[in-house]
């Protein structure tokens, strides 16, 4: 008997604007995430802020990941395997709230995003499936 599954696993890639964090992505971003978690110590945050490039060079991240950090390009970092729970530690080091970090990935300004949340958030209508929207 072939195994029955409730849905094909590829369907996890069918959600608009969404990268589902998988083991493969976790592996791709392992060293990026190692860097992010290093920011859980005050001394490391200070060292990073003093010379970002030199600090990043202590980690085996790809050049693209390092550039993404320097540019604070969270979407780029997510594309390169990153997950928000790690990346938020970078935002916290910069003194940004989680909401500001999240809004920065949404393509909206922080103000527009905050207003949308006050008005009840983003409706799921029309953004459930890439396929369905074609």
């Amino acid at each position, binding site marked *: 008997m072939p195994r029955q599954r409730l849905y094909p696993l590829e369907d996890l890639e069918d*959600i608009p604007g969404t990268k589902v964090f998988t083991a493969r992505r976790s592996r791709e971003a392992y060293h990026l*995430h190692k860097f992010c978690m290093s920011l859980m110590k005050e001394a490391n945050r200070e060292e990073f802020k003093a010379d970002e490039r030199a600090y990043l060079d202590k980690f085996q991240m790809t050049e693209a990941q390092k550039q993404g950090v320097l540019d604070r390009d969270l979407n780029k970092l*997510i594309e390169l395997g990153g997950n928000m729970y790690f990346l938020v530690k*970078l935002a916290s080091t910069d003194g940004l709230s989680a909401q500001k970090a*999240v809004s920065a990935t949404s393509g909206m300004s922080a103000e527009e995003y905050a207003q949308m*949340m006050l008005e009840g*958030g983003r409706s799921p209508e029309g953004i459930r499936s890439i396929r369905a929207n074609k």
Partner: protein
Amino acid sequence: MARITAGIATSHVPAIGAAIDLGKTKDLYWAPVFQGYEFVKEWIKTHTPDVVILVYNDHASALMLDIVPTFAIGFADEFQSADEGWGRRPVPVVKNHIDLAAHISEQLVIDEFDITLINEMDVDHGLTVPLSLVFGQPEEWPCKVIPVCVNVSQFPTPSGERCWKLGEAIRDAVKSYPEDLDVQVWGTGGMSHQLHGSRAGLINEEFDRRFIDLLAHEPEELKYITRLEYLRETGTEGIELIMWLIMRAALGYGVEEKKRFYRVPASNTAVGHVVYEAKS
């Protein structure tokens, strides 16, 4: 014998912890959120358990990088609050009930749950924010806490059905513990939210309210919500709701709902909260 007397579910948004720590709970933005917890703060005074089994997910503070256990139990004597990038939350150290944790761990493996034991870790907002919401800002937490960590971030997460069974197994384990202990099970996280991309800020009030509607008395069908449905309907982080199922299953067949609360927003998230007393 030990018994599970009550269950609490609540979101564990980090900004809620910051609002408490910075004394902002009366601010215009936060007051309506904290109002929803006035009931539980009073209720807990007459219902303080000996032990809380607190089901939460670590947010890349102790897990998710080098080790990614699907289900794990905190097995250290005590746990410090984690520095998540802005310093440790100023909350009391969390103290474990090692003997009950050991008993539950053994029983779970015997019940086919191959649980991971964690002998050292810090606990992040996922665990400390619920404690603050319920107990406020005491010098010491008034009870022991057994952390149960669930992977809800790296796919595939455990299914809702699997979480339900874990809750049932925790219930059986507690009931077979010889000492007379009052135990609560708390499920944390949720409700709908997504923290990245063009769907960031997603809130599905209809889904969330239905989930709360069914959880007390008709939880069966919630077990079968698939990971894909959680993702589509509640956002990438809304799947934390599977941890509410562990709490609900641990309470057994009948519960009395003492409180329900729903509020949008807290930061990026829909806040949900329920208090149940066990009937059996």
